[in-house]
């Protein structure tokens, strides 16, 4: 869908303006509400709103300075820069006049800043543009009234309004009058061709603070009288606390208290080190109350599920069994992946201070609103007692969607009646995770008369299966007989979303499978993809949201940019095209043999995510996503032994480092479609591109992540091409 320049829903639901006590114009809006398409259906009554219902603000001071208060969790995906860029564009101010702040506007007047969840640029696009344009229109109306002219004859550029006679007024001169005006009902948005800020590269708004080490992150937050909590949790999944002895820990220097909350023991101390050290002195007895599971169990169980018949069918077109029976050729392969911890560079942490008056929470969280609500409920308190401030976040990757650490902090503070910061050690962070579940895929396809006639995807996963539109992603719609079946095993190991859920592994399985299938069919890998997509054109199936046209374009562009098929001697390439998070991506990995081993040297990445808001930020996301994808596909090895994680720190768990990181060249398709996801879509294809390039280089296929754990692949003696 091309980007809309007039917005049909009522802005009244989320906008309000007024004058500031200190002089100037204030526009408040609820980004959270505005970004949810649901809000469109049930506009609220403006008169019932006060500023406590807003979580984002634009403030224009009398000197013309613009401050944008961005409520959104910044986890490294760049929204604290890109969202204000969108507002500034429509407000029509120069970017260097804009100052961006996170969080609280005025603690005296606005006490509740429970702010939005993980909404993206995609949902914020219309709301942010409308907000900026509304403020601009009010300023124009104020200027027109002062001059006694029609608003339509005024033009704006960079915060200065000009009338037909050539008189000018700056925004700062008009804020007092504008604040008294009605919020306009209709505003016109800019045409993409007129953008001056959107589509340019703006440096991260926190850059100065980051490079000088200013306190920004949750772990950096401090307040008077705060104690640090190091928490001992059951060492294995499936265990409960039986008893403990804290005598020794309590006697250690700087230790304030040791308290039990549920099955956990929290050591409170005056500094982090004393708390961590005293935790090691705790003597605790644990007992298993459910099965202590191991990775071998999971392996066996998931294989059993794939071989069994307890599936739920998520999509079925035609008759795959008939297609397989009538085929000239059938290919069936199984792909396996382990659990993965998130390993945010900043370990989980949260501050809580529970008093009779309020519940003060501070820290890095991707779902502030939901978490605040859960805490109020747990402590049987009014939701209005909760005051949550978000900090910058040292990575999210899905882990900070779960408020377990914040709830824990609130529980401990409630019991200790102290301001408490819960700090996870790296070991805690990896051992008390909410992991990407281990998954296995089995894919089977049939070929008849040179055509792919059937495609059957089976998923066996721990705890939960693929959801939403994933079963309708490519090749749904392109193959007549198509079926997706899923099955799961309920484990006591906690699992959840991990950057690009499901597709982070499915893309590799599917794209590796296609590479092998196309080789078996002896067809051109690019042409075959284009031909399959051709069949999807004009589909009336609403479940199919990927665009065959846009997919073909990224494929063709990737062929051109990567020099596909024209690579130098000794360079082996792997091709992947994948759609997820509403964006279309194609990637080509270049592999060379060095010291007898295949090494990823370069990745070309072509992305269609609609309009790119911040080109600098977008490149950073794309490069990071590709390298992250390769890192976890290559090295991410994690499992359980009797309920205990097999790795708890970086000596045993390998993350990709600079020496293994290829050069990534990212290209963005220029178009006027509304922006779509960018934090995730470049990650899933990367593993497949590498696996396919490894095959080209060595003649061998990898069916299991992490790639490093395939001894048969790395056994050099029977590698014909190496050397």
């Amino acid at each position, binding site marked *: 869908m091309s980007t809309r320049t007039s917005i049909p829903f009522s802005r009244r639901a989320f906008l309000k303006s007024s004058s500031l006590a200190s002089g100037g114009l204030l526009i408040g809006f609820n980004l959270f509400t505005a970004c949810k398409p649901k809000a469109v259906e049930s506009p609220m009554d403006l008169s019932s709103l006060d500023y406590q219902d807003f979580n984002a603000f634009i403030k224009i001071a009398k000197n013309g300075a613009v401050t944008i208060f961005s409520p959104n969790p910044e986890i490294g995906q760049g929204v604290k820069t890109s969202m204000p860029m969108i507002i500034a564009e429509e407000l029509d101010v120069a970017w260097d006049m804009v100052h961006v702040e996170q969080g609280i506007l005025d603690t005296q007047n606005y006490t509740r800043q429970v702010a939005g969840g993980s909404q993206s640029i995609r949902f914020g696009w219309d709301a942010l543009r409308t907000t900026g344009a509304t403020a601009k229109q009010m300023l124009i109306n104020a200027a027109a009234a002062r001059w006694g002219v029609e608003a339509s004859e005024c033009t704006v550029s960079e915060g200065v309004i000009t009338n037909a006679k050539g008189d000018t007024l700056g925004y700062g001169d008009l804020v007092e009058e504008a604040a008294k005006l009605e919020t306009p009902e209709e505003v016109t948005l800019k045409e993409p061709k007129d953008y001056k800020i959107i589509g340019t590269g703006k440096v991260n708004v926190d850059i100065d603070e980051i*490079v000088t080490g200013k306190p920004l992150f949750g772990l950096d937050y401090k307040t008077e009288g705060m104690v640090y909590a190091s928490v001992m949790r059951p060492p294995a999944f499936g265990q409960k606390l039986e008893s403990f002895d804290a005598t020794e820990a309590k006697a250690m220097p700087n230790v304030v208290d040791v308290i039990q909350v549920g099955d956990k023991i929290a050591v409170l101390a005056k500094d982090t080190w004393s708390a961590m050290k005293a935790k090691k002195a705790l003597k605790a007895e644990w007992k298993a109350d459910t099965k202590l599971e191991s990775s071998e169990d999971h392996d066996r169980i998931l294989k059993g599920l794939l071989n069994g018949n307890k599936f739920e069918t998520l999509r079925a077109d035609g008759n795959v069994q008939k297609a397989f029976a009538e085929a000239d050729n059938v290919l069936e392969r199984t792909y396996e992946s382990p659990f993965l911890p998130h390993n945010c560079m900043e370990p989980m942490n949260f501050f809580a201070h529970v008093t009779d008056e309020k519940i003060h929470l501070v820290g890095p969280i991707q779902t502030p609103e939901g978490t605040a609500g859960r805490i109020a409920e747990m402590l049987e308190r009014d939701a209005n007692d909760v005051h949550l401030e978000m900090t910058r976040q040292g*990575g999210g990757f899905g882990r900070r969607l779960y408020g377990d650490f914040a709830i824990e902090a609130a529980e401990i503070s409630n019991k200790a009646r102290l301001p408490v910061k819960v700090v996870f050690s*790296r070991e805690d962070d990896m051992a008390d995770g909410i992991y990407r579940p281990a998954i296995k895929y089995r894919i089977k396809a049939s070929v008849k008369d040179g055509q792919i006639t059937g495609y059957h995807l089976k998923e066996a996963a721990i705890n939960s299966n693929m959801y939403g539109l994933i079963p309708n992603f490519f090749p749904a719609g392109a193959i007549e007989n198509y079926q997706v079946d899923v099955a799961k095993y309920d484990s006591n190991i906690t699992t959840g979303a991990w950057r690009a859920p499901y597709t982070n592994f499915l893309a590799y399985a599917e794209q590796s499978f296609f590479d092998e299938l196309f080789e078996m069919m002896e067809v051109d890998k690019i042409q075959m993809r284009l031909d399959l997509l051709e069949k999807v054109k004009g589909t009336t199936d609403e479940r199919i949201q990927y665009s065959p046209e846009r997919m073909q374009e990224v494929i063709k562009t990737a062929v051109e940019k990567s020099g596909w098929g024209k690579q130098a001697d000794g360079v082996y390439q792997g091709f992947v095209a994948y759609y997820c998070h509403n964006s279309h991506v194609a990637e080509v990995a270049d592999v060379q043999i060095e010291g007898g081993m295949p090494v990823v040297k370069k990745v070309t990445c072509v992305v269609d995510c609609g309009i790119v808001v911040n080109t600098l930020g977008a490149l*950073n996301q794309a490069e990071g996503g590709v390298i992250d994808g390769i890192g976890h596909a290559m090295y991410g090895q994690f499992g359980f032994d009797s309920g205990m994680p097999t790795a708890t720190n970086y000596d045993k768990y390998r993350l990709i480092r600079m020496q293994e990181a290829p050069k990534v060249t990212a290209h963005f398709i220029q178009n006027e479609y509304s922006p779509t996801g960018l934090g995730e879509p470049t990650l899933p294809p990367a593993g497949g591109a590498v696996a396919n390039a490894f095959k080209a280089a060595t003649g061998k296929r990898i069916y299991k992540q992490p790639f490093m754990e395939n001894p048969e692949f790395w056994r050099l003696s029977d590698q014909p091409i190496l050397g």
Partner: protein
Amino acid sequence: MPTYQLQVNGKATTVEASEDSPVLWVLRDHLNLVGTKYGCGIAQCGSCTIHLDGEAVRSCSITMTQVVGKSITTIEGLSEDGSHPVQQAWKEVDVPQCGYCQAGQIMTASAFLEKNPNPTEEDIKTAMNANICRCAAYNRIHKAVTLAAEKMV
């Protein structure tokens, strides 16, 4: 608990801390210098990198007794105002994603470039391999170190 005289960012400082406390936590919790980050605590990630008499060291894995009489520089003291060529390069290249690892990256890079002002591409990769960036901003880190080297000439 023993008292230590330290030289931190050019200033003489006295701090009380347990002798086995890693310097990292003394900096963060006692001296309020939270720019130095905790990532692993076992000398694997480089988030906690500081300069000890100009050498890049992992502050999570050295204790107070090892720093007495030596001069410590943290990210807060690398320059008065973020004007160190490495910090400048980091801004120009717009390196950070989440930003959490970047103080450690900058401290590793600045100590490295003091020693090797004309690094090859491989030299940079080897030196910076000590620091993990979970957001994988490695391409930009590399680019910024190259740019900083040019600025330092």
